[in-house]
Structures are given as C-alpha cells and as structure tokens.
C-alpha cells in the first residue's frame, strides 16, 4: 500500500513543495483529498469495483516517487511520434505531469480561450479553481482519484468561451520519462465549456522511453449548455507502465459529450468514466476500444447517471484480447426516479483471440424511473466462422482472414474519432498489432486513402 501520511515516507520528501503551493484552493483540495485517501483502502480483488484487476504485484513496488523535473532538454523531435503526422492542433505537452512550454504550441488559440497549466490558472482565476476543482461528478470516489487529488503535479486548465466553435482540436499530450525505478506521474485537468461552444479535445498518454511509470490522471469536464465536446483519449504508454485515469463529466441541458477512449498501452490500465446527465436534452456517448496482448490487463469502468428527464446515452465498448491479456468492462447505467423519458443503451463486445486470454463483462442497469428505454448487451466470442470460410473461399489465407476480421471488429469505435490523422494513426497501430501478415503497410495506406 502506498504510504500516504504526509509526515512520513518517500512521498513527503518529494511532495513537500506541492503542499506549499501558493493557491489556498489547491492546498485545501489537496488536504481534503489526502484525508479521504487515508480512509480509503488500496484496491483489492474483494472490492466489487476491482473484482477482476489484481494490483498486488503493483502494490509491492509502492510507494513510488513523483518526478519534479528532468525534462528541460527535450525537443520537439522527441514528441514527434505523438503529433499524428503534425496534425493541425493546439498542443499542450506535459512530461511526467509537468507543463513543458517549450514543446507546447498554444499561441494561436483565440483570444478568449484560456489554455494554460493549472498552477498558473490558480493564480489568475482562483474563483474558477474554487468553483470547479474536484466538483465534477464522481460516483464512488476511489483510491486513485484521491491519490491524484493529493499529489497531482500540475495539469491543463482549458476554458472555452460562450459561442466559440472551432475545427482545430486541442491536444493535451501527457508523456512519461522514466529512470529505471517505477515513477509516479499525476496530472489534473479542468475543462470548462461555455454555452453553445464546440471543440474537439484529444488527450494522449504516451511514453518517451520503455521505462515504467505509474500514471494517475484525472480530467474534470464541465460541458456548457448546448455545447458539444468531442473528447478522444488515447492511452499508448509502454507496456511496462501502469495507467489509472479518470474522466468525470457533467453534461447540462442540450449539451453533447462524445468520448472515445482507446487503450493500447500499459501493463495494467484502468479507465474510469463518470458522466452525469443533469439537464433535459443532454447526450452522452462513450465509445471504447481496448486491444490487449502479452500480459496486458485493461479494465474499463463506466458510470452514466441519468439525473434529468429526456436525456440520452449510448455506449459501445469493444475488447480484443490476444496472448495472456485480460479485458474488463464494468459499465453501469443509473436512471434516477425523476429521469423519465430516458433513453440509454450500452453494448460491450469482446473478441478472444488466444487460448490464454480472458474477458470479463459486467454491464449493469439500475433503473428507478418507469418511462424509459434502456438496453444493454454483451457478447464474448471468437471470429465468425462463416465469415472466415467466406474469406477463405475467396482465396484469403486463414491468418489474413483472421487479421482482417479482427481489424474490422475495431472499426466502428475508431471511426467515432472525427480527426482523420488520429484515426489513421490508430489504424496503423492496430494494423501493426493484428495485421502482421496482411499485405504491406504502404499497401494498407494506399487502400485506406482510397476509402477516405
């Protein structure tokens, strides 16, 4: 278990400066989080929300130390692999949870948009921090959220003004750089959307080397009325790292929130989404893809709370599990008594590719209103035998047929990402993962571009 007493152990030594932050709101928030953390048990299999995710090996490596700085000499070339072929975007880069201005590019953002690191924002907009930090909805706050709350080292603060619409995405890029021992990296992000605004936000988690880091992020999103946020999260860390990420969203009247969360990296990853539909006409869409290989474990937990009448939610999570990997979907739709005319759908599909892979699915409905349309479905299976035969009968070898169908399985989730370069990046990643025998990459590229 991580020692969290601020007076003792490794944490204190490294985090002392954090607790002396000049913003009293942040200091208070840390203190509250720390208190909650101290009364929260470290997740274990006996906890229902951690039923399939064994952290006992990780626990042995704790406590871990955050890194305060050692990224001064990084250049833009170092982060090129995560630029999605230099996609036009406003980029904020964080290394080990610290804002890295020399790698970022946010100068061309519109005048009224605020995009800065959280610590600067705390100085300039203390009222916002007081109003929003830790206030987005979260059902059953857990260990890692409190851990982040107590020890985050910075994060992004984005405030989109009313009526702002932009085609150019904002890219938050969180990179880790290890030193051999397991390190801790925690960013805390606040996204505040004005009325009638519309933006696309990409949140990428990647590694700059193959050293292990424990990443523990929390992003809080406050949609404005009648706003639209497309939120794409890509978890691409190296397979020695761990990832515990939460996204907490409040979705008021007539606003739309569309999340696509793709997990390809990390040894153990845990994604938590807590979305609250608080106003009539609100819409929440959660798409997820987790593609595991080797001994990766990918745990996806979602909670959508319908608190208002006339709200709609739609979830599609897909898992592809190869090698010894384990994929978990634990999704809950909660419909409160006053949330009449709710429409909520949830689908989880898992594809098991190897004898030693596991899939666990827990799609849950908890419904207290009667005038609702709710459904959920889950399937676990292998590739369709008829489709395999059809492909083979056209001359396609078994191996290629398998990778084509695997790739096809993931298509609809990837297609929910509206940014072509990101989509293409993911297609290539998946192609390399599952399409080893399927023609050449150039061939794939030319074909893909034809279809675009």
């Amino acid at each position, binding site marked *: 278990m991580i020692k969290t007493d601020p007076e003792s152990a490794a944490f204190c030594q490294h985090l002392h400066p954090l607790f002396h932050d000049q913003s009293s709101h942040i200091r208070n928030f840390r203190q509250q989080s720390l208190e909650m953390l101290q009364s929260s048990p470290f997740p274990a299999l006996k906890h229902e929300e951690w039923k399939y995710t064994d952290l006992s090996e990780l626990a042995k490596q704790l406590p871990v130390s955050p890194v305060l700085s050692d990224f001064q000499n990084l250049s833009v070339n170092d982060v090129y692999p995560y630029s999605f072929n230099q996609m036009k975007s406003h980029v904020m880069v964080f290394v080990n949870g610290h804002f890295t201005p020399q790698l970022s590019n946010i100068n061309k953002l519109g005048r009224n948009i605020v995009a800065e690191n959280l610590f600067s924002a705390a100085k300039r907009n203390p009222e916002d921090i007081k109003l929003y930090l830790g206030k987005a909805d979260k059902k059953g706050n857990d260990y890692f959220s409190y851990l982040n709350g107590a020890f985050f080292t910075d994060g992004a603060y984005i405030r989109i003004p009313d009526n702002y619409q932009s085609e150019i995405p904002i890219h938050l890029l969180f990179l880790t750089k290890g030193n051999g021992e397991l390190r801790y990296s925690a960013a805390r992000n606040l996204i505040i959307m004005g009325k009638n605004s519309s933006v696309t936000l990409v949140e990428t988690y990647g590694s700059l080397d193959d050293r292990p880091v424990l990443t523990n992020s929390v992003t809080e999103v406050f949609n404005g009325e009648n706003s639209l946020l497309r939120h794409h999260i890509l978890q691409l860390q190296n397979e020695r790292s761990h990832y515990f990420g939460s996204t907490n969203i409040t979705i008021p009247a007539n606003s739309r929130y569309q999340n696509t969360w793709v997990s390809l990296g990390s040894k153990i990853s845990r994604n938590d989404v807590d979305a609250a539909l608080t106003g009539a006409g609100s819409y929440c869409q959660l798409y997820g893809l987790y593609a595991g290989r080797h001994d990766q474990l990918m745990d996806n937990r979602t909670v959508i709370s319908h608190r208002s009448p006339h709200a709609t939610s739609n979830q599609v999570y897909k898992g592809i599990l190869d090698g010894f990997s384990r994929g978990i979907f634990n999704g809950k739709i909660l419909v409160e008594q006053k949330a009449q005319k709710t429409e909520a759908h949830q689908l989880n599909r898992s594809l098991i590719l190897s004898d030693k892979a596991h899939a666990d699915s827990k799609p849950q409905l908890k419904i207290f209103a009667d005038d609702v349309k709710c459904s959920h479905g889950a399937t676990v299976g292998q590739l369709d035998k008829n489709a395999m035969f059809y492909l083979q009968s056209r*001359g396609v070898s078994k191996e290629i*047929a398998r990778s084509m*169908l695997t790739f096809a399985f993931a298509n609809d989730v990837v297609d929910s990402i509206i940014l072509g370069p990101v989509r293409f990046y993911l297609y290539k990643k998946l192609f390399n993962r599952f399409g080893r025998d399927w*023609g050449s990459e150039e061939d794939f590229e030319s074909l893909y571009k*034809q279809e675009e």
Partner: protein
Amino acid sequence: MLSIRNLKASIEGNHILKGINLEIHPGEVHAIMGPNGSGKSTLAHILAGKEGYIVEDGEVIFEGKNLLELAPEERAREGVFLAFQYPIEIPGVSNTTFLKTALNEIRKHRGLSELDAMDFLTLVRKRMKLVDMDPSLLGRPVNEGFSGGEKKRNEILQMAVLEPRLAILDETDSGLDIDALKTVANGVNSLKNKDNATLVVTHYQRLLDYLVPDYVHVLFDGRIVESGDKTLALELERKGYDWIKTKAGDSK
C-alpha cells in the same frame, strides 16, 4: 477439369451424398437440379471445403489435384469459386479491402504481380458494369445491409474479378426478381470461355432459360439419378420432382 468419383459424405451422422459421379470439362456448363434436401448445396459446400462435412468415400480431382486435401483458400487459388446461396455479411470489412486482398492472394498464387490500389479499382469499376452494380456499394462493408439482389450481384462481381476456372453457383437464382436474374445470368454468360466451366446448382428451371446448360443432372437422395441435356430441365419443370421420385423408387 473436375472429376467427382463415388463421393459419399455425411454431416452430423446423416448421410447426404451417397455416391456422386460427375465429369466436367473446360468450356462446359453443367446444371444440378433436385428437390430440397437432395444434397445439392452439400455438394457445393464440399467442393468449396466448408467445415463440418465428413467425406466417407470417393474422390474429387480438380486439374489433376486431389481437391479434398486442400484448404478452402487453396481451392479458391486453384480456381474454384463458390457463389454462396446466402452470402455472408462481414461488418467492418469494406468490399474493396475484401476483394483486393482476395485478388492479390490469387494472383500471387498464379505467379502474377499484385495489383496496387489504383489498378485494382480500375479493374473493379470495369467489372461492376458487367453486373450493373451501384458503385457506392464498393465502400460499404461486405454484404452488410445489401438487399438480396445486391448480395447476389456482389457474388457475381467477385467472380468477375477473381476469374475462376470453375464457378459453382449455389441457388444463385433464389430470391431474385426476373430483371436481377437476367443481369446475373448475363454476367455469368459474359465470363464464360473455352477454358472455364460453370456448375449451376438450382431448384428451378427458370435460371436455365438465361444460362443455358450443356448438361443437366438430377440429384435425388444423394445420387445423380438422371442426366441429359437442357431438355431434361424442361421435362422436370413440366412433370415436377415427383416424377423423379417415382422413377428413383422404381429403380431401387
């Protein structure tokens, strides 16, 4: 080209084929007719290599090779093409990707260079005209959301692109209106040449008006009980299958 000798096969313990003999030469069109459950589709599936059937006796020689020993994709590369009675839907795989992959696999096998995307698309667009297929279907997932007619046309398009030596059409006419039937038949006719052969499996004589067979075989209870030219099909149409049943019963 294809030589089936005393083929006996079963599925889940039921004997379906009880000794089939059939010779097909290049340039020929053969039709196999028969009542439901006579074993027509089983024969087509076994030739293509579908799992689940047990061949108990006999052999199938295709171009000098023992067909039954080959994997389904190897048969396809050798030039055996099955137009499915119920074409399979493959969500997520686009028609283009599907067909291009198949074509290049077959070309590789034949010692030809692989086509790049541009050449491939040129070829496909040309072939699509043959079956009067809506070009927008190319970008869509294989057969998903296609109407019955579109699926059958898609089968013939694949045939046109892959250029098999032996095409087996399994009930390709079922569920088609007369216009679609003509289109499909015309497509098949225009692909016919002296080096390839066609085996039409059908319950109805209708398709044979447009796709004229050189030989007609009647399959009943797992055996070919009658063979003849196209007039046999007309006779069947007139007298119905009971006639064959009686005849087969007599000969036992």
